[in-house]
């Protein structure tokens, strides 16, 4: 087990920058998830840590030792690939043994380790099979087993669940988390699926454009996103992001009114840095909005209702913009119905239109720069 420290890491392919200065401290025994859209650089970062690509500038340390120049085999890390990368010409047993035999571990100890891991993962009956004779979930387990058996300093996961169907994915998610809680080995897990990120991580790193947008525990990222990108990426259904203006006529000193079109959404504390134009993006989670058929509130019209089983997603139009409301109530609204929305001002997050940065109220701004 080990702490991994990443400092100012950049990666360029020719003139194309894929990573533009990543800093990250992974604590010993921590489960970190790198999440972001495809092309954000998350897999590249993982491959740099594994030693499969050369670092352009910056440094990576494992247990305080710089590993930039080490070959992959000298880093003592294990990786689970999206394709599983099981050696097709070897049996499951040989797959599990390969890494051990390269390290010159005595045969008896090797058999013991393989036995232990295969019991832990339920592979005992499959040891003599070739990978092509296994189902997707079984292959996934063998790939895990191959990583675990070597007892490496850290696990690297490269979208390991994306080739599985939804149900199996949910199950493997659970199994990987269970296994981690048992072993407590430092893990770095790459995914584009924010649900995986939310459910598995101790801390999430949201990446976009080769930059870490925000690092923090899942709930913190959900409740307190640092910028528009994180706000829009984390959460499903996604946060409503509305074009709004701030008007300084709410009466109470230090407050401003958030307007969408000609409708007033709510009165909130004045942000620490007020945009000159008064234009902002106002974000609100679909499940944080309430509504009713009464006349008090922001008038809106139902566009479409989607039933998900657990609840409903209502697409509505208000102030000339489309937004979503998520509710677990059994509602009877239909397309074309009129209703009124209610928003708690504390649930309303404001973002700068140009930089996408969060605009925090004065009082809060000091605490969270």
């Amino acid at each position, binding site marked *: 087990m080990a702490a991994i420290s990443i400092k100012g890491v950049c990666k360029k392919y020719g003139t194309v920058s894929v990573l533009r200065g990543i800093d990250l401290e992974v604590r010993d025994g921590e489960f970190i998830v790198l999440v972001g859209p495809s092309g954000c650089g998350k897999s590249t970062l993982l491959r740099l840590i*594994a*030693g*499969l690509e050369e670092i352009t500038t910056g440094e990576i340390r494992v247990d305080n030792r710089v590993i930039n120049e080490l*070959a*992959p*085999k000298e*880093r003592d*890390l*294990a*990786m689970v*690939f*999206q*394709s599983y*990368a099981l*050696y*097709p*010409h070897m049996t499951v047993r040989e797959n599990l043994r*390969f*890494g051990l035999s*390269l*390290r010159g571990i005595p045969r008896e100890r090797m058999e013991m380790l393989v036995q232990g891991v295969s019991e832990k993962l339920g592979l005992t009956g499959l040891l003599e099979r070739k990978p092509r004779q296994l189902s997707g979930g079984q292959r996934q387990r063998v790939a895990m087993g*191959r990583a675990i058996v*070597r007892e490496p300093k850290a696990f*690297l996961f490269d979208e390991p669940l994306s080739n599985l169907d939804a149900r199996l994915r949910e199950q493997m998610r659970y199994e990987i988390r269970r296994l981690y809680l048992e072993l407590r080995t430092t893990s770095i897990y790459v995914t584009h699926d924010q649900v995986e990120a939310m459910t598995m991580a101790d801390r999430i790193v949201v990446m976009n454009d080769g930059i870490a947008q925000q690092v923090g525990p899942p709930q913190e990222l959900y409740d307190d996103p640092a910028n528009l990108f994180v706000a829009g990426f984390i959460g499903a259904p996604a946060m409503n992001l509305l074009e709004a203006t701030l008007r300084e006529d709410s009466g109470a000193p230090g407050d401003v009114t958030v307007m969408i079109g000609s409708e007033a959404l709510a009165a909130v504390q004045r942000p620490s840095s007020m945009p000159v134009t008064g234009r902002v993006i106002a974000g609100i989670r679909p499940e944080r909005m309430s509504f009713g058929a009464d006349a008090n509130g922001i008038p809106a019209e139902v566009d479409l209702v989607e039933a998900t089983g657990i609840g409903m997603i209502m697409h509505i139009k208000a102030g000339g913009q489309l937004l979503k409301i998520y509710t677990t109530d059994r509602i009877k609204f239909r397309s074309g119905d009129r209703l009124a929305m209610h928003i708690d001002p504390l649930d309303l997050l404001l973002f700068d239109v140009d930089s996408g940065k969060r605009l925090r109220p004065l009082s809060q701004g000091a605490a969270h720069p």
Partner: protein
Amino acid sequence: MKHCLKVRLYWILHYALLALFVVFALFPLYWLVKVSITPNDLLYSEGVRLWPSHTTFAHYVSVLRHTAFPLFFRNSVIVAGATSVTSTLIATAAGYCFSRFSFTGKFLIVGVLMVTQMFPLVMIVAPIFRLLSPLGLTNSLTGLVIVYTAFNVPFATFLMQSFFDAVPRDLEEAAMIDGASRFRAFRSIIVPLTLPGLAATLGFVFTAAWSELLFALMLNSSSDASTFPVGLLAFVSKFSVDFGQMMAAGVLALLPVCAFFLLIQRHLVQGLTAGAVKG
């Protein structure tokens, strides 16, 4: 009903055309075998009969006993064998390189290799003779091996590259993270997975080297260093009357390449599209 008849007619035509192709492809080879086992006295009297009234292996016996063909055969086996092994080794290195690395100048090198596939080889017959002769590499099997290896490496490289491309990169990376060096990953993971491809490349190069005539004719004039094609051609020009023996020798020349053909025919498509040019 009418539709049914049409389908029937189509298949009759289909098989009839295929039958023509099969006859066209096989008849010349059939005739070669037929004449090689026809006794001399029946050769003229039964010239156009499809099968002689009785057969003999006498031609094969005399080719093996009384001519230099066993020597030519041996020379050809040595040249084709050595060429296929060296070409495949060199092509494996280059093919692996093209498949797994991107580097400055790769485009240029690949381009140069492509150009050689359209190369008029007759153009370099004379210079090669002049280059190899002072080095003592004419009338030498080594000289032929060097020249043939150069001719076959580009094609074999593209072929090997296509086999390596079919092996996912992940496997190799997994092995390297598991603790293998690049060479160890190559040996333990890539080679076992591309073994059929290696065999096919060996076969393609062997066949090409076995069949080459012009350079063998030009470079090796002494009969000690003659390959089978040269020997057969010399035999034809000198004793062009003993058809039975010539054709028996021809059948013998055909055997090794037919064996390779059966071995590699599953890879023919990959082979021909990789080179897309060489015969």
